[in-house]
């Protein structure tokens, strides 16, 4: 499918994400301006505050956006999942350039001019509004311009906390190895950034032209003022319009009979989320989907009550959440997880769904056939010439990288590359790395001709798929127990891999694939 064909087909969705994106950028920049400019003015008056405040704003900007989102989710009022969290994060990122340029702009006003203003008998307020702010305006606008471009970029990450925007396409594109999706997110975001930069560049030029010689005349200034006011008015109206749409779609959150289903940010998890979502919808419930939550975000969101349930793997819960050393007996792991989640988090664990998604140590199929590799032990002698690429998850978990290389006595040519899990498959298939740790039910294993090496030393603990559900959600929504009961032991490994394959390799919609599967199963 060509990119243009793709755009034509997905036009309404693209427009929707574009609107979400614009709204997030607009509202967060507006708030950042409302906070940043007064703060900047204050800092020009109080010298002692200057370096601490600028320091804090500086540190804000260095926090990686995903980390900031993760930190915000469990916080009351400003946190959670959705637009609000994204806006808080975006405002924090936008503050520094605005504050810094306000300070620089005002302090940069010619001392003679300021002295003349005071000596003419202007009050402090008149000096600020009639002299300092107008003369600093082009520098301040430069700050807003930088903030705006940053916000447009960071907003693509907002999709990780379910705020929508063009990032939805990008995340989905990376996960599904689909360049059309990637481009559909990246190109409009880049265009937005260019347009915003250019537009504010013009505005900035007009303001600084006023200070320079020869060109400016009263009539041109008036024309400019009219244009600026019109532009602001249009932006405001658009913003309010988008705002009303946005709040309309989010206001249902706290209603009764309303379920929020979460999932992690990869296809299988989203499919498992979709399965429950459709079954609940078939029982007449309103379902909100908060899929594509990265890292430990779904766990935090569940405990914070932002979602009612999400699919998880017993081994992940056992080692990554409960921090136990890995063990290999599936029964022990399941029982322990069930007990501790009930005690610690008041969260129920469903019956296993019937398949195990363990780490799959993968190499290229051609390589495996050439070297006659079957097990991980077979690969050990070759590994010293190989590069490895692992997801952030695998590198940091107790049952991940450190124990894995120790158990097999593995050594690689260089320190493994740590990267996004979805990207590792592509990196392996294209020869950028030679060994990765994927998921055993990953649909792309067959699609990309990858080979799974057998875990002959039984290092990896069991990863049985289950749903984690808040106990209060179970008592609030009786239909939930019934649905989860039906799904117990209902999804064998082959079927899960097939579902993944339909979405990842055949590029079919999740909802459609799930609908067919439910029909076949008679649910």
């Amino acid at each position, binding site marked *: 499918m060509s990119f243009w064909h793709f755009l034509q087909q997905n036009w309404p969705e693209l427009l929707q994400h574009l609107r979400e994106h614009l709204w997030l950028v607009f509202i967060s920049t507006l708030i950042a301006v409302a906070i940043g400019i007064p703060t900047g003015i204050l800092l020009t008056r109080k010298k002692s505050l200057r370096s601490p405040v600028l320091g804090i704003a500086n540190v804000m900007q260095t926090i990686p956006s995903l980390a900031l989102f993760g930190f915000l989710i469990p916080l009351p009022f400003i946190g959670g999942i959705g637009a609000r969290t994204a806006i808080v994060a975006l405002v924090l990122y936008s503050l520094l350039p605005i504050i810094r340029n306000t300070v620089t702009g005002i302090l940069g006003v010619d001392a003679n001019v300021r002295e003349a203003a005071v*000596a003419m008998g202007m009050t402090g307020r008149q000096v600020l509004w009639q002299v300092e702010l107008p*003369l600093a305006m082009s520098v301040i606008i430069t700050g807003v311009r930088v903030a705006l471009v940053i916000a447009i970029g960071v907003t693509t990450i907002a999709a990780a906390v379910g705020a929508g925007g063009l990032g939805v396409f990008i995340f989905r594109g990376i996960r599904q190895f689909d360049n059309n999706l990637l481009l559909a997110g990246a190109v409009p975001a880049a265009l937005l950034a260019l347009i915003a930069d250019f537009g504010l560049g013009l505005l900035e030029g007009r303001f600084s032209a006023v200070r320079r010689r020869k060109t400016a005349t009263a009539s041109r200034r008036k024309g400019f003022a009219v244009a600026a006011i019109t532009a602001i008015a249009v932006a405001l109206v658009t913003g309010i319009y988008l705002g009303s749409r946005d709040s309309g779609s989010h206001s249902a959150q706290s209603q009764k009979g309303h379920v929020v289903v979460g999932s992690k940010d990869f296809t299988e998890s989203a499919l498992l989320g979709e399965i429950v979502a459709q079954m609940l919808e078939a029982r007449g419930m309103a379902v909100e989907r908060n899929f594509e939550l990265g890292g430990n975000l779904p766990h935090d969101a569940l405990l914070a009550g932002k979602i009612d349930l999400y699919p998880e793997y017993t081994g992940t819960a056992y080692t990554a959440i409960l921090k136990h050393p890995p063990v290999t007996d599936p029964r022990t792991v399941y029982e322990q997880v069930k007990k501790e989640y009930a005690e610690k988090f008041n969260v129920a664990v469903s019956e296993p769904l019937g398949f195990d998604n363990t780490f799959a140590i993968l190499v290229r199929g051609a390589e495996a056939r050439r070297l006659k590799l079957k097990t991980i032990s077979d690969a050990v002698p070759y590994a010293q010439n190989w590069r490895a690429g692992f997801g952030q998850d695998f590198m940091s978990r107790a049952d991940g990288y450190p124990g894995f290389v120790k158990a097999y006595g593995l050594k690689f040519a260089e320190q493994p590359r740590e990267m996004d899990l979805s990207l590792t498959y592509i990196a392996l298939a294209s020869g950028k790395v030679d060994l990765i740790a994927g998921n055993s039910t990953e649909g792309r294993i067959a699609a990309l001709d990858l080979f799974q090496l057998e875990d002959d030393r039984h290092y990896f603990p069991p990863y049985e798929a289950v749903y984690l559900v808040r106990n209060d959600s179970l008592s609030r929504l009786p239909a939930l127990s019934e649905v989860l009961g039906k799904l117990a032991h209902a999804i064998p490994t082959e079927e899960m891999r097939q579902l993944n394959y339909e979405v990842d390799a055949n590029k079919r919609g999740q909802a459609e694939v799930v609908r067919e599967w439910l029909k076949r199963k008679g649910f």
Partner: protein
Amino acid sequence: MTESADKPLVEFRDVSFSHGSTPIISHLTFAVQQGETLVMLGESGSGKTTALKLINRLLLPNSGQVLVENKPTTEWDPIRLRRRTGYVIQEGGLFPHFTVEKNVGLVPALERWGEDKIKNRVNELLSIVGLEPNEFAGRYPGELSGGQRQRVGVARALAAEPPLLLLDEPFGALDPLTRASLQREFIDISKRLKKTAVFVTHDVREALLLGSRIGLMHKGELLLLETPENFLKSKNKQALAYQETLTLAPLNSDPVEGRA
């Protein structure tokens, strides 16, 4: 003005001012009479600009009193005091984002004069300082020459008819010819408008030309305060040094003698 003519408009009474621990002005006592142009002459760092800023309360003395219209500056509302005091600095200190008209009409606008009254006043003032209102009112400072900017600066200082003008080396950055013509016009204007002015300069010729009296500042002290005639007769060491520059100048301009 209701005060009698012999009462000084500005009076310094044993005024000292220091910046941190560095003394800038020490024990300054003198008075500025109604209608005179008092020139403060001195080299950089002599404290003459500081003395000027003490008058319109841009600075407050550490000890002693500065009185304007018989009232200590500490008791003046600084905004009222400054609006009654015209202030001209080098390059004029014009607001680059205001037109000439708005620059000149600034203090009247701050004083909430009516629009027509401001406009008439601006036109009148521009004519006084030799700028054709129709041509210059709509221009920005960036579109003016240095001399024109300085004229606008003087017009702005005169706008709300202040009884007192303070000028801090207003013509310092101009070329000699423009400076000479502005000096002549300043004499003309101050005679016509009967303004009281305190004029700061480091140029002894300018001081002799413009001052009804010359106050010689050196290292924060007032060495003498005399009419131009008496200044030229003074045997004070600093005054002699200034007198010498007047006589040396033509010698230096002679190529042969200058090299000897």
